[in-house]
């Protein structure tokens, strides 16, 4: 397998991660597009033999952080322009916990969501996640622990509210 095929092989997980991270189909496709654009442009800088997956996810992380920042700036500068969001298509299974988790994920901070997804979904090691996010492993661990716990509480609470409504 040559190097460019190597990049292509990582596109599906990059795309899955982007979808889970943004929760928005077109935002996710933009994120992948921008990441690949940058990756192809900087491919000459990738050191052969080093971890290509980590390199690509690092680029995606940087692009994501920049996009979030510039979106915040845009919102500040132009409060009137409403952003049009195309929601992710509902998953095939209509099970409650699926939708709840997706909703709960949106309530996490970007920082916690990144860690929970890199480790829980992309099955990165703690060291890999730390490298990709440019953080000490300890920070990754505390974000993971807090993120998972918050998801659990959000889902419990979601369930409780539903039950209350049923009783009423």
């Amino acid at each position: 397998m040559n190097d460019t095929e190597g990049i292509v092989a990582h596109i599906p997980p990059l795309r899955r991660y982007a979808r889970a991270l943004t929760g928005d189909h077109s935002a996710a496709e933009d994120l992948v597009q921008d990441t690949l654009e940058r990756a192809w442009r900087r491919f000459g800088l990738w050191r052969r033999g080093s971890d290509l997956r980590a390199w690509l996810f690092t680029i995606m992380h940087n692009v994501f952080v920049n996009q979030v920042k510039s979106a915040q700036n845009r919102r500040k500068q132009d409060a009137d322009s409403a952003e049009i969001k195309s929601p992710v298509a509902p998953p095939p299974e209509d099970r409650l916990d699926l939708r709840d988790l997706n909703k709960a994920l949106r309530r996490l901070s970007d920082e916690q969501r990144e860690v929970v997804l890199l480790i829980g979904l992309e099955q990165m090691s703690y060291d890999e996640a730390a490298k990709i996010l440019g953080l000490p492993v300890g920070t990754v661990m505390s974000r993971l622990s807090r993120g998972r716990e918050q998801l659990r509480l959000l889902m419990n609470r979601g369930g409780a509210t539903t039950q209350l409504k049923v009783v009423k």
Partner: protein
Amino acid sequence: MSPSKLSVSEIDLHAYLDGRLAEERRGEVEAFLTANPQEQERLRAYQEQNQTLHALFDSVLAEPIPPKWRTPDRRWSWRLGPVAAALAWIVVGGALGWLLRGEQAGNSGKNVDFARRAAIAHAVYSPEVRHPVEVTAEQEEHLVRWLSKRLGGDLKAPHLMDLGYELVGGRLLPGEQGPVAQFMYQDKNGQRLTLYIKTDAGAERETAFRFSQEGSVGVFYWIDRRLSYALSGEAKKEELLKVANAVYRKLNP
């Protein structure tokens, strides 16, 4: 018999869940979980989160990859790249220059042109993957000697490692009135800055920093001892200024 709570940390629990815990410690955590049903329940909830994440998002893996994502061909970019943006600015700048031609004092107009040329050179060469420079930093001494000779001045490629920028190398370019040198730097994320230098600074021996935004490329430019410098990049203005200051200091130790 039951292990104390202290012996099993929060980190151990996550590592156990993620299959990252050393084999010999797994028994210890399992015993702890048996003794602490609440913790076991919590961990089971986390486990379910992971399963649900896969159920939610694994279908994305099977989506066909758009052909445009498969190749390094940069033409598929539908956005204005820095090159296009810089070219658009030449047109706008040209028109402006024409409109303002009566009002520009000779030198400042030339300096604006200088900044624009530096920005264009940056936009053209900084995205290069295979040939960003003519001579790489590995032959730094040769590079500096060569460019000094061609420009007829005493050039230096300041070292910016302390700011996180490594010298990539440099190249010779045609300027308005003769050869121009470009040194390229990049940080660990591949973000590039270029230092554009020409010798024909005219009568001015020194100027303050000036800033010009040319499309997505910001340029700080100044004159120092008959050499004109322009530092270009798509980094934030403060970052550029910080580097420009460092370049100036390093050239005037």
